[in-house]
């Protein structure tokens, strides 16, 4: 069994638990929001939805990249990796804009329990996206310098990064439905 793949799987298991806890906290305080802003009152699901599509698209481009990589088409691999990084970066940009907008309206992390749990949850997801981008960038760099030419070990590493990235997106699917879609319902 490939080592890196197994390791990343276990890592994801622990990460999933971590996010589960943050989500439970968010849901718990959704029931007892207290005064001040709520998801429904300050969030903009449409806008975030659009940026989310970019993130999901980046999963697709990552798949293509992996596909090209297996086909030993390293130039194409590089292109698709760059595309993935670009899409992920745009998602982060969107999140930054969202945060900025919230701060302007006085929704800071310590404003009320909704704000705290919201920023904690989405913030940590953002952090994970960022880490994923760094990892993918490194892979892209390697493939650019032609040092990715697929020995079993590199292929394993490549897949591991891919799995992590898909996990980050999957978590966003949950967060988006719990935080944004629930707000519309």
């Amino acid at each position, binding site marked *: 069994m490939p080592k890196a793949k197994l390791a990343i799987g276990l890592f994801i298991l622990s990460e999933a638990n971590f996010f*589960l806890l943050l989500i439970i906290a968010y*849901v*718990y305080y959704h*029931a007892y929001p207290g005064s001040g802003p709520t998801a429904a009152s300050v969030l903009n699901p449409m806008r975030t939805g659009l940026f989310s599509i970019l993130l999901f698209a980046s999963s697709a481009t990552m798949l293509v990249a992996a596909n090209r990589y297996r086909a030993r088409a390293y130039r194409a691999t590089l292109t698709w990796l760059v595309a993935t990084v670009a899409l992920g970066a745009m998602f982060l940009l969107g999140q930054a804009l969202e945060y900025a907008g919230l701060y302007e309206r006085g929704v800071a992390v310590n404003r009320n329990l909704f704000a705290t749990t919201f920023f904690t949850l989405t913030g940590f997801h953002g952090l994970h996206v960022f880490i994923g981008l760094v990892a993918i960038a490194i892979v892209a760099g390697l493939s650019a310098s032609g040092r990715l030419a697929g020995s079993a070990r590199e292929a394993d590493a490549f897949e591991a990064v891919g799995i992590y990235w898909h996990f980050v997106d999957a978590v966003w699917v949950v967060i988006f439905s719990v935080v944004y879609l629930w707000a519309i319902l």
Partner: protein
Amino acid sequence: MSGVGNLLRAWDFDPSIVIGCAALLAAYAFAHRDDYSRAPWFVGGVAAMFLALVSPLDALSDEYLFSAHMLQHLILILIVPPLLISGLSAKVARAIRAVPALARIETILATPAVAWTLAMATLWIWHWPALYNATLANEDVHILEHLCFLVTATIFWWPIFAPDARARMEPTHAIVYLATAMVSNSVLAILLTFAEPGLYPAYLHPVDSLGILPILREGWGLTPAADQQLGGLLMWVPGGLVFLGAIIFVMARWYSDPEPRTGTLGVAAR
């Protein structure tokens, strides 16, 4: 305590259930006519299903208590299918596989990923308040729900208890399969346990046709909040213990059959 009397008398021999169970038994008797050694399991399964669906438990579930309804579902999902499957003999199982169409169906459905997803999706979807309430409002939807549970659960337990050893999952995989299912079951249960009361409004103000509501509320202390908690806890703890039991069973089966020898003793393995 006439109320309790009414409750104990509230048996509802719905023809669909009676006929269904009878048909199951008949089919089994026919298929196994030369070997009834495993019949007790199968009969036990049918009996459990029958009791769950016609006994006062059903009355409680439909009208009064979320927790009772949960208990009924747990029986249908966690108790009945394993019993039914264990009742089948390997011979019959092989006979079924002999039919190419059926064999193909089994290969698809018994794929762990498929079976797992089917079962868990069913479990989660039907607990979505809108759907769950629909089952309480409309008897046909309710029957559909129970069928969904029975079928997908049977598919779920097949790779664990399949009579034909070759159809079973490899033990380590089986443990992961069951463990993940247990987690998914627990997460849902925890959500139900800690959710605000009134997730399923029908249980807030039951139409008290048996006149037992006071007994339930005061006597048993099952206020709507307590009732919903109890339901969640039932799914969480006893439900989880069933999955755990299955894991232990798989391991016991695994450890009890001797391993194939690897190479010969003393001589180096090359």
